[in-house]
């Protein structure tokens, strides 16, 4: 259930115009005023059908619409009751028995029973629904009575008792075979989560209504609207003007400005998202420069990049450094590596590595050649859909030039990038991931079988890297029931992947969230102390928020950070006001200077005229 983060940026002015047309149907003027929580998003859903969608936006909608057997705690993602009130495991860890709550119903009034849970799990395994399959691949579900679900795993499964696949309503799905399902829009399906999907206008907004029959009770907010903005500037303007109540898509370069707004609370939280420079390790398809298949070249590249500077200058410090990829929303799974073994910024080491391996600049043009005389000129694929791409390409290009490697930047959209990676016709690219809670899916992506053998249906392994030892350890951790031992194996796997230097992890990126504290209160961060409150793993914010009462200022359940983020802003605000005052003055001055200059030119020329004519 890991998914690519797909931040979009305006490509064309046309797109700006459409975003302003994204006005949802006005709330009907009822007797009682409806409370609507409006969230601004940059990325629309790709599909609401759980068997098709991959975007974060789709997950955010599903978390609200569909019930799950178990939930995750907002403190540390530990397993919590949801539809299942309690569960017990057998001694061998292969069989788990879940007891459902009594009186559960779907939003259409149909009872929600053990049979419904069993239906979803078995069907999604049989038909290999992409978002469910990694969780249910080895599991057989059975309902022993109305309220009891028994899951039997053919292999030991460390992820159990967590069972968080979205439970779909059989009263609709039984009438859909696999073909019909792939065309199913799912918008009017009954739901079992806190909100139910009601309307989706692609590229404009989607609207969800509170579910009266939600087992935790109807949420305090009557309606959720997710409004799509194609341009971050328009999004920020909408937040400031109160057109939207919250957003999870603040660009890093605007975050510090929003801190000064007293009506807006901003929160920077991490849930494992990171950006990497991926170097084609050469185990996949394609026509690539043979030098990148040499781990020494990849390590030299890793040493040439100053990640601290990237974090400070490109991300404005809104993130953190990590030696290897993160595989979980929880930092406990991150690789712990002594500084000496990490790829520190050291161009001299990088040059030495290349020199010793026979990559020497033989023709003195500043670019090294490989032993066959091919210059180290690498294609660097840059994403058009992230505002970080251009500065990252600038920095990385200059550092690599410094050690004698030239890059050729190609700017691609995300939909072009995926097949290019599968094709293998590149040397490096920069992209990012947002992992799920359990490390298994993220680890699975770098196994040999995930390398694409057909660009038409790309696999997940976008490093084109393959290591039998890693694959062996992957299978081992996937059936290791002892959490400590599993943790050790994962560390070992991450170390192998780190040493291959096929993924140079640049930084972990914070999710930058904000909400209007003059409208709503009680947003929930996941994990509480370090995470964001929107686009989280369970969407607790939507269940807990409520409109503020008169004179109340909205608060966030996000640990210590909130005070730090929005406190002590009086001085800042004043100085900003000063800045804008003086800048307005300077603009006027500049314009005045231009006018005067133009005036002088015209005057001088006008005076010359009679003399010319006299000639």
């Amino acid at each position, binding site marked *: 259930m890991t998914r690519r983060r797909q931040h979009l940026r305006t490509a064309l002015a046309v797109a700006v115009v459409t975003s302003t047309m994204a006005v949802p149907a006005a709330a009907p003027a009822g007797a009682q005023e409806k409370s609507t929580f409006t969230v601004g998003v940059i990325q629309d859903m790709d599909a609401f059908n759980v068997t098709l969608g991959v975007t974060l936006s789709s997950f955010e909608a599903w978390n609200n619409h569909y019930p799950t057997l178990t939930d995750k705690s907002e403190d540390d993602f530990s397993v919590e009751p949801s539809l299942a009130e309690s569960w017990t495991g057998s001694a061998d860890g292969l069989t788990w028995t879940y007891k459902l709550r009594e009186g559960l119903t779907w939003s259409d009034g149909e009872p929600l029973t053990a049979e419904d849970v069993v239906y979803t799990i078995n069907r999604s395994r049989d038909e290999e629904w992409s978002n469910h399959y990694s969780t249910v691949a080895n599991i057989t579900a059975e309902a022993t009575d109305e309220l009891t679900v028994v899951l039997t795993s053919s292999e030991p499964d460390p992820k159990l008792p967590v069972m968080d696949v979205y439970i779909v309503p059989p009263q609709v799905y039984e009438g859909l075979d696999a073909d019909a399902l792939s065309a199913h829009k799912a918008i009017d399906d009954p739901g079992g989560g806190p909100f139910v999907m009601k309307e989706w206008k692609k590229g404009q907004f989607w609207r969800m209504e509170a579910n009266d029959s939600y087992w935790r009770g109807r949420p305090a907010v009557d309606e959720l609207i997710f409004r799509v903005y194609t341009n971050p*500037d328009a999004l920020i303007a909408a937040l400031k003007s109160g057109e939207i109540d919250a957003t999870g898509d603040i660009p890093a370069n605007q975050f510090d400005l929003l801190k000064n707004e007293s009506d807006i609370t901003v929160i920077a939280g991490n849930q494992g998202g990171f950006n990497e420079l991926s170097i084609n390790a050469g185990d996949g398809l394609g026509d690539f420069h043979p030098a990148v298949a040499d781990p020494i070249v990849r390590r030299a590249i890793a040493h040439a990049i100053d990640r601290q500077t990237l974090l400070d200058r490109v991300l404005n410090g809104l993130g953190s450094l990590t030696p290897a990829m993160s595989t979980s929303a929880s930092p406990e799974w991150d690789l712990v590596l002594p500084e000496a073994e990490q790829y520190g910024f050291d161009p001299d080491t990088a040059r030495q590595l290349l020199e010793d391996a026979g990559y020497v600049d033989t023709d003195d043009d500043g670019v090294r050649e490989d032993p066959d005389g091919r210059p180290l000129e690498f294609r660097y694929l840059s994403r058009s859909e992230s505002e970080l791409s*251009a*500065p990252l390409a600038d920095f990385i290009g200059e550092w690599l030039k410094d050690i004698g490697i030239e890059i050729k930047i190609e*700017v691609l959209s995300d939909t072009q990038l995926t097949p290019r990676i599968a094709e293998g016709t590149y040397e490096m690219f920069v992209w990012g991931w947002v992992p799920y809670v359990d490390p298994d899916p993220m680890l699975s992506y770098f196994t040999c079988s995930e390398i694409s053998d057909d660009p038409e249906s790309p696999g997940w392994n976008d490093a084109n890297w393959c290591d039998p030892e890693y694959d062996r350890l992957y299978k081992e951790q996937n059936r290791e029931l002892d959490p400590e031992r599993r943790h050790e194996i994962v560390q070992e796997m991450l170390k192998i992947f780190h040493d291959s230097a096929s993924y140079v992890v640049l930084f972990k990126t914070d999710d930058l969230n904000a909400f209007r504290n003059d409208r709503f209160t009680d947003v929930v961060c996941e994990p509480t102390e370090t995470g964001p409150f929107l686009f989280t793993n369970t969407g607790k914010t939507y269940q807990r928020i409520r409109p503020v009462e008169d004179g109340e200022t909205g608060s966030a359940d996000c640990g210590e950070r909130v005070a730090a983020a929005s406190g002590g802003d009086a001085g800042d605000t004043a100085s900003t006001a000063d800045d804008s005052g003086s*800048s307005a003055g300077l603009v006027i001055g500049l314009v005045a200077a231009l006018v005067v200059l133009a005036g002088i*030119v*015209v005057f001088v*020329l006008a005076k*010359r005229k009679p003399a*010319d004519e006299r000639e």
Partner: protein
Amino acid sequence: MGRRRAARVRRRRSLARSWSLFRAHTPGMAGLVVLAAFVLLALAAPLISDAGGLKVTHAIGNPQWAHPSSEFPLGTDNLGRSVAAQFVWGSRISLFVGLMATLLTMVIGSVVGIASGFFGRWIDAGLMRVTEWFLVIPFLPLAIVLAKILGPSVWNVIFVIGITSWPATARVIRAQVLSVKERLFVERSRALGAGTWHLTSRHVLPNVAPLILANTTLTVPIAILTETTLAFVGLGDPTRASWGKTLEEAFAAGAVIGRNAWWYYLPAGVGIIAVVMAFTLCGHALEEILNPKLRER
């Protein structure tokens, strides 16, 4: 030899007359002064500003979003680079692309226009259909699609602008050729046995040349604006500073709406307006001088 010298003297006199007319043309002169200033700036870029100032890795120690100061005359951008350096170096690419693209436009437009007007009949019909085809396709989408397909580089941008903006020139020149080729001296020359090459290069071309020149100065601003547009939507050369790229980066970095970092985007914007304005003024002045019908007096 004597005849050639006479021709040369006549041309020099005519040039001098045009020049004195131009000098008397106030807006045209103002445009020329501004233009000269920018060309000087572009040529002297290496003397004024260190190219290293464009490098992000050289700007690591600089403050980000700094207001203009004595150290950074136009402040710094989101990565700490000097905006002044970007402005100076950007003028080179903007002018270079503008001029090269115009050259391409003029060559294609003149050849098509002269061929079409001079030969007439099916050549004319064929070439004019192609011209109309290019004219009816909306210019900007075509340029964007082409730039996207060809990939971002300075030469591709020049090619894209050249290939999309020649039809207007071709039609203007064709109209003039149609009138020139009916004149008596052309008839006479043809009666004396002059071939196609002689007629087009010695009689037609010199007579449409002033029009080409005036058209050129009016096309450069369009080319510069197109370059800016392409760079702004991210289709320019990502490795070279240009004014359009500066505007694109300023917009992407939130300088325009969020931060109001006017020093980042205003110089490039003013630069583009000034150069475009200057070319337009010069172009109109030339048009007036070279086309007696437009001249008042």
